[in-house]
């Protein structure tokens, strides 16, 4: 049995699985197009304009500009995470799609890699739709903010990998609620999203930097949307890349253990 962190043999056929999911998504694109638009507007109005009218500024930038990168980063996290938990679990367990796929030249490694790539693609699609809305409200700084798009892919891949690890070990679909409520929701609030990380007690700041992936994604996203890139970006990027690689490898190997018996 391969070690959880060994490099899985993924072939180019993974793209076929990605393409299958894209085809299904594209067929219902009208339904899929609106949530990102609405979500961006809801955040901007409720938190940006609402709370923003009391808070005014954080560190010299308008509050709504402060939270704009958080809106993008949370969207990246949610779209990849929920696609590769509930979405992948339904395809694996209820639709038996993975069983059907591995009866073809596709290997289980190809199938899971395709699902991870698709999760990351969902994040990219979300950000591509949200970005113009934020730009219209003048809360992101173009053209540097366009780098949010490739960043969405990297961040999306990270959360897809984390999600797939949970999917690989969950006994049923209900137990996927635990990582959602205990990990994803708190992370959306305590990762330097709606208030600066520096407001947390020092110990918690270290915890957030060490353990909460969203912290690093928000930090980079903020540098892009506010056009204020500092060398620290390299540390954040390195953290994300390492965690992405580890989680994606673990996800594929754990899924093999679950499905190939």
């Amino acid at each position: 049995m391969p070690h959880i962190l060994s490099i899985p043999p993924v072939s180019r056929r993974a793209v076929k699985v990605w393409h299958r999911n894209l085809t299904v998504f594209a067929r219902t694109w009208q339904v899929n197009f609106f949530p990102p638009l609405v979500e961006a507007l809801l955040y901007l109005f409720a938190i940006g304009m609402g709370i923003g009218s009391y808070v005014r500024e954080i560190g010299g930038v308008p509050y709504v500009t402060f939270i704009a990168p958080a809106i993008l980063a949370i969207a990246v996290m949610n779209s990849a995470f929920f696609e590769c938990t509930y979405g992948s679990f339904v395809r694996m367990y209820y639709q038996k799609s993975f069983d059907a796929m591995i009866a073809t030249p596709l290997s289980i490694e190809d199938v899971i890699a395709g699902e991870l790539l698709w999760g990351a693609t969902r994040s990219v699609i979300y950000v591509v739709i949200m970005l113009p809305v934020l730009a219209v409200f003048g809360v992101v700084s173009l053209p540097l903010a366009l780098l949010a798009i490739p960043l969405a892919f990297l961040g999306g891949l990270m959360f897809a990998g984390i999600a797939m690890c949970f999917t690989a070990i969950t006994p049923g679909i209900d137990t996927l609620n635990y990582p959602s409520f205990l990990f994803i929701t708190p992370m959306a609030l305590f990762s330097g999203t709606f208030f600066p990380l520096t407001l947390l007690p020092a110990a918690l700041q270290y915890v957030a930097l060490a353990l909460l992936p969203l912290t690093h994604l928000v930090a980079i996203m903020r540098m892009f949307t506010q056009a204020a890139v500092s060398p620290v970006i390299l540390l954040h990027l390195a953290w994300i890349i390492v965690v992405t690689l580890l989680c994606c490898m673990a996800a594929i190997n754990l899924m093999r253990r679950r499905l190939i018996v």
Partner: protein
Amino acid sequence: MPGIIEAKDLKKTFGSTVAVDGIAFSVRKGEVFGFLGPNGAGKTTTMKMIACVSPKTSGTLTVLGMDPDEVPEKIKAGLGVVPQETNLDPDFTCYGNLFTYARYFDITEAAAAKKADELLEFVQLTEKRDITVEKLSGGMKRRLILARALVNNPDILILDEPTIGLDPQARHLIWEKLRTLQAQGNTIVLTTHYLDEAARLCDRLVIMDNGRILVEGTPADLVRDHAGREIVEVEKSDEVESCLRDLQIPYEMAGDMIQVATESSRDIARILLDRCRPEKVITRPATLEDVFLKLTGRKLRE
């Protein structure tokens, strides 16, 4: 000449459970080969090992001359699989299912589109082309799965209970399609619980129980060797039983009937009617079902 599928001392264990316990068989090119056995006999596990989706624990297995542990993707390119569980893609139409599946085999878009329509025609689902698979009846779903297994023009077709839960009309249609495929030179490996289906379709078959192969042969040979030519059935009563014992005629209990296997049902029936005064006597040819129940017993399996 080696078979298109060869297994020697093939074994599969799940923890401490032995699902397949050192079996050997050889499937020849172009034949229909059946795996029969009660639930839990190891048939599906064997199918999964042949289909390269479940690795063997020990022994040797070659499919199309290749080792599933070495080059599964090459073997799978030449296989068509009809699984026991319906796993069509509910997000697609009938056409979409075939087209998408063909793409997994690296078939070009143009060829996949052409093949999908050809196969819909073959399984008589052209009218349902653009309907989502959830709206199909059970029989239509099985036909579509059969069509899906053919998208890559497989060298070997692997069918795990292809007609499970179907009405007689739907079963006959599947049989007809399988015979057409065999006539075209396809090798077909199947499992089934329906013994009439096995007798009808299989050139050769094995009966498995508890992970082992009990017998192997053509349906006709198996019936002749293990159940005799004919069966006489008599309603069970103490008088008939003691009468049979007195006459030293071997018999078997089958529910509320007593069965006597014989080469000549006419003679046995006459003796019974003359000497034992039975309520009712039925004579019939022996079938694969008699062989099956004789070899695997009448106890219920779960």
